[in-house]
């Protein structure tokens, strides 16, 4: 409902903006069709299908005035999914007013912020909630209400955030694939804070580039974006319920860029009422440029993820090795292929993925993604995904 009101308000505003001489207005965005194919029969009730079709739209409305000192960006998002009603969903990815001054900027609204340097897990990235039904890699995020003041000094950039209001993570529903045996009932979410999803979170970050090093340190206090999933009996049915705790988190991310090497580290210390633990993701990326007299670059990636809680960890990368290879063809169609995989050193389970994309013509883009899982041990949480090998074709039209 809020989504619809916002869209209507934006459209009502648009003609006014265009007529005003000193206001720059622009609409862009993309529509996409996505076909998913599953190579194996599903494990759980409600998942009895091999293909799934979905469509999404993500326009971007942009206004700018005062010589660019003020701007508003509005980016709604909607997806229709053939099978999973939880994946049929809308969100406001961004609705932000930005004011820019000399050496500072201020943002108010719904926004998106990314922190971190590694490729296979985004450990330090905490401001935005993960849109768990959109993609498997956790790179799709929900818009976060925020007030953000960013100050640029010689000694680095300082970002202060006040985050009023919390977005719950989205999970695949009864009919969704890529879920555990029990369905997550997001309507029954529980909170440690009596303010529930109205709790005001805070974050403060310093980041800087010194010589070949890019560094960031932050402190976050508020509602954990990553819920604990606990079993509850709801209406005689056993379901999972997300439980959102209050946490204090210190995070550090750093990258050293040396010749063809990128050295990457992310680490967090998270303190909740249950425990305090450390987690780490780090590794290297090395790139061979122009392999065998072509324009193709070949990158090799190696990362390791560790969580002090070991097998009790809520994260999947508690003791995992990741390898990847990235081909960038540097051609006119911007063709890219990323092959990767992970090995869980505790359970021995393996995952493999491929992401390939290229532009077609001026305004189209085609992507092919594949995810494959293999688990042997029933104790491994990843066993729930072992029958969900998936190939996904996405066709996007940009406007």
């Amino acid at each position, binding site marked *: 409902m809020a989504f619809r009101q916002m869209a209507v308000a934006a459209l009502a505003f648009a003609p006014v903006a265009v007529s005003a001489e000193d206001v720059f207005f622009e609409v*862009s965005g*993309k529509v996409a069709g996505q076909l998913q194919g599953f190579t194996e029969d599903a494990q759980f009730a409600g998942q009895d299908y091999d293909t799934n079709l979905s469509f999404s739209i993500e326009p971007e409305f*942009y206004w700018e005035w005062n010589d660019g000192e003020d701007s508003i960006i509005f980016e709604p998002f909607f997806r229709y999914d053939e099978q999973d009603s939880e994946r049929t969903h809308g969100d406001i990815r961004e609705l932000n007013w*930005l004011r*820019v001054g*000399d*050496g500072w*900027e201020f943002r108010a609204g719904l926004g*998106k*912020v*990314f922190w*971190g*340097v590694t490729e296979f897990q985004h450990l330090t990235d905490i401001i935005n909630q993960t849109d768990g039904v959109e993609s498997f890699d956790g*790179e799709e995020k929900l818009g976060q209400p925020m007030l953000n003041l*960013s100050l*640029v000094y010689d000694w680095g*950039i300082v970002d202060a955030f006040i985050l009023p209001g919390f977005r719950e993570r989205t999970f695949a529903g009864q009919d969704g694939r890529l879920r555990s045996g029990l369905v997550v009932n997001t309507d029954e979410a529980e909170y440690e804070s009596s303010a529930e999803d109205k709790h005001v979170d805070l974050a403060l970050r310093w*980041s800087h*580039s010194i010589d070949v090093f*890019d560094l960031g340190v932050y402190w976050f206090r508020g509602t954990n974006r990553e819920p604990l999933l606990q079993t509850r009996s709801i209406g005689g049915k056993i379901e999972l319920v997300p439980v959102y705790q209050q946490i204090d988190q210190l995070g550090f991310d750093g*990258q050293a*860029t040396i*010749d*063809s*090497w*990128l050295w990457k580290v992310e680490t967090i210390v998270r303190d909740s009422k249950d425990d305090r633990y450390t987690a780490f993701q780090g590794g290297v990326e090395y*790139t061979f*440029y*122009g392999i065998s007299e072509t*324009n193709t*670059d070949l990158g090799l990636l190696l990362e390791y993820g560790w969580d002090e809680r070991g097998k009790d960890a809520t994260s999947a990368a508690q003791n995992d090795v990741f390898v990847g290879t990235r081909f960038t063809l*540097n*051609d*006119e*169609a*911007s063709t890219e292929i990323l092959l990767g995989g992970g090995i869980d050193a505790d359970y021995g389970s393996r995952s493999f993925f491929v992401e390939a994309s290229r*532009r077609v013509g*001026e*305004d189209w*883009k085609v992507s092919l993604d594949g995810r494959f899982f293999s688990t042997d041990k029933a104790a491994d949480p990843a066993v729930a995904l072992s029958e969900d090998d998936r190939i996904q074709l996405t066709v*996007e039209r*940009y*406007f």
Partner: protein
Amino acid sequence: MQVTKSFNFVLGAGLLASGMLMSSLTLAQTAEERGLEISQEAKQRDLGWGDMQAEMLMVLRNKQGEESVREIRIKNLEIDNDGDKSLTVFDKPRDVKGTAFLSFSHPVGADDQWLYLPALKRVKRIASRNKSGPFMGSEFAFEDLSSFEIEKYTYKYLRDEACGLGQCFVVEQYPVDKNSGYTRRVVWLDQAEYRTEKVEFYDRKDSLLKTLTFNGYQQYLGQYWRADLQTMVNHQNGKGTDLEWSGYNFRTGLKDSDFNKNTLKRAR
């Protein structure tokens, strides 16, 4: 070796004997010194522009003549005693709209480069070793687009020659950086204004790879020359790329604080 040495010794002794001959020889320049001097003069004449903003249409043309277009906006800041800072924003193709590139170039050693990916809101520091790689699938390599700094090359003057801009110096430039894709560049500079008319690029095997020509020079601030059109032709793959420049605007008040990760993220 032995022969050369003793020959030099004899020659040296002979020169010492003749004071007049000696002084006339020190006055004469080697081709290397002359090449350096011309390049220094060209650089000197282009100093002091301060900052610049412009739009660039990049037209990629394949062997069959099919075209595809990239739209790019560029902000440059001249830095005293260092390479320039630049912020490059992509408007087209639309799938890369909002992608932005921040570069602090340095006369010697690696540049500092960051790429902003709008879909993820992610700023990535990228390795700058990739000097010879193509820019956006075009026939321009990264090193072809970076600012000209004296320290990046060693030089050799070849000859004077008539050219489209009148009379030209022809100077060879040898990249110092081992990651350059070229053994040498041959540059035609007009003798009146020291504007580059043409550059020939020779690949690592010293075969002619590309020719870049500059057209439609216009003067800005009564002093600085910029071409409206740069045409790169790759002789080995038959492809070409045009850079059509417009909206050149100098001394717009850009400052150091306009070139950081915040400005990269909101560049559009």
